[in-house]
C-alpha cells in the first residue's frame, strides 16, 4: 500500500542525484558529438563536406586575393550530424566533444570556423591546383606520387605519355 511513501523515504535518504554542473565541469563522454573541428593543414578543398552537409553550414568560397579558398563552417547552422567528418577523405574535419558553445547574440556570426586554405602548385607548370599537403600525399598519393602533384592538364599529358609507352610498363604502373 502507498508505494510512493517508500520511494519518497528512499529519495530523502539517498540524497540529491544532481550533477554539480554549473559549478564544476560536467561529465562528457569521449565519443560525444560536439562541434566540428577543421584542420586547414589537411584540407584538400574537395568539397565533399559541403556536399553532404544537411544544414548548409559549410561554405567554400574563393578568397579575395585569389591565393586560395575561404573555408567556413558556421556552428550556428551545424546540426552535429557528423556526416562531414564521416566523408572527409583526409580527416581534416573531425567532431570534437566540445559542447560549450553558448554565446551572446553579438557573437552570432563570429561563432564559426573560418580558415583560408592556400592553393597548391602544379609540380610541372606551377598552375593553381588543390592543396597537396604532405600528410595527404602519404595517404592518397601513394599509387602515383608524381602524378598526384600535377594539375589536370599536366596529368593528362603524363597519362598520355604513359599510354604511348609499351604496354608492360603501363601495366606495371597500374598495379
Amino acid at each position, binding site marked *: 500500500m502507498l508505494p510512493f511513501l517508500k520511494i*519518497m523515504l528512499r*529519495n*530523502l535518504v539517498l*540524497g*540529491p542525484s544532481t550533477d554539480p554542473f554549473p559549478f564544476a565541469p560536467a561529465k562528457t563522454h569521449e565519443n560525444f558529438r560536439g562541434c566540428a573541428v577543421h584542420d586547414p593543414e589537411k584540407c584538400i578543398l574537395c568539397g565533399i563536406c559541403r556536399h553532404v552537409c544537411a544544414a548548409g553550414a559549410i561554405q567554400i568560397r574563393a578568397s579575395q586575393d585569389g591565393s586560395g579558398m575561404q573555408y567556413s563552417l558556421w556552428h550556428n547552422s551545424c546540426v552535429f550530424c557528423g556526416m562531414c567528418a564521416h566523408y572527409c577523405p583526409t580527416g581534416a574535419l573531425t567532431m570534437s566533444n566540445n559542447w560549450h558553445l553558448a554565446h551572446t547574440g553579438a557573437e552570432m556570426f563570429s561563432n564559426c570556423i573560418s580558415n583560408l586554405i592556400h592553393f597548391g602548385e602544379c609540380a610541372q607548370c606551377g598552375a593553381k591546383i588543390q592543396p597537396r599537403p604532405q600528410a595527404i600525399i602519404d595517404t592518397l598519393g601513394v599509387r602515383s606520387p608524381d602524378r598526384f602533384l600535377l594539375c589536370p592538364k599536366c596529368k593528362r599529358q603524363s597519362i598520355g605519355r604513359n599510354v604511348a609507352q609499351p604496354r608492360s610498363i603501363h601495366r606495371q604502373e597500374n598495379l
Partner: protein
Amino acid sequence: MTEILTDSLQAVFAILIFPGGLFVLALGLFLKGVDRKVLARLQRRVGPPLYQPVLDLIKLATKETLIPNTANEGAFRLAPVLGLTGMLVTAALMPIGGVWSGVSGLGDLLVLLYLLPIPAMGLMLAGGSSSSPYGALGFSREMCMMFAYEMPLIASFLAVAVRVGGSDGTGGSLLSLPAIMDYQFQHGPLLFDPVMLPAALALILFIPGTMGHGLFDIPEAESEVLEGPLLEYSGPLLAVFHLMSAVKLVVVLELGVALLCPNPLVATGGGGVLVNLLWHICKCLVLLMVSVTCFRAATGRLRLDQGFSFFVKYTSPLALVSLGLAFLLR
C-alpha cells in the same frame, strides 16, 4: 475611552506586527522556501536555496507592470491587495498555543469561515477582471473548487464545535477558537481524539485543496490554463499575490494546528513564550510536510470534476462521520 484606545492599538499591533503582519509574512516565506527545498529533496534534486521566495519577490519588484487594455484596471489592481489584506487580518485572529490567544471576541470559527475564502475571492476577481479567456477559466475553476473544499471545512468546524461544546454536558456547541483551545489544553489535543480523527483527515486534505497543490492544483494549473487567474499579472502586483499565498499558507496551517494540536510545550510566562512559539512553528512545519509537501510530491493534478467529486465523495463524508459521532457521544 483608554480601554478602547489600547484595544484598538493592540488590534493594529496584532494585524501589522505579531501574530499577523510582519511575523506571518516572514514565516510564510520561510515555509514556502522549506516547502520547495523539501519537495526538491523528495524528488532527489538539490532545490533552490531556502531564501528563494524572498529573491523571487525582489525580482518581481524590479519588473514592469503590464495591465491589459481590455481589463478593468481598478478591479485588476484591487484584487491582490484585497486578498493580502484579508489574509493579514485573518492571520491576526489565529491563536498560537501558549503565546497568543487571539483578539478577544473575534476568534470565532464563523468569522474564519467568512475570512478564509477572501484570497480565493481575490483570485476570482483577478481572473474575472483580467479579460483573458484563461483568466475566466481560472475564475470558474477557482469558484468550483471553493465550493468543493468549503463543505468539508464547514463540516469539520461543526464537528469540532459539537465535540467541544458537548463536553460540558450542556449539549451546546462552541464556535470560539479560544474556547476550543482551552478544551484541548484540558482534554488533550483533538488530533488524538478517536472521534475527531476523520475530521482531522478532512482538514488535512482541505489544506492542499485551498492552497491548490498536488491533486488540487486545478485553478492555477500552469500547463493547462497558464496559471489561470494570475495569467495577466506581472511585476509588483504578482509579488502581492505571492505574499498573499504565503500568508494564506500560514493561516491554514495555523488553523490546522489550532484545531488539531494547539497545546504549548511548556507553561506560559518568561522564556516559555519563545519556546512555545518555536514549538508552534515546528507543528506548522510538520503539518506543512504532511499536507502540502509530501502530498504534492506524491500526487498529480486531477481534472476539475474529479477534484470536485473527491471532496464531495471522500473528504466531506469523513468530516460528517466525525460530526455524527460527536453528536451521538455528546
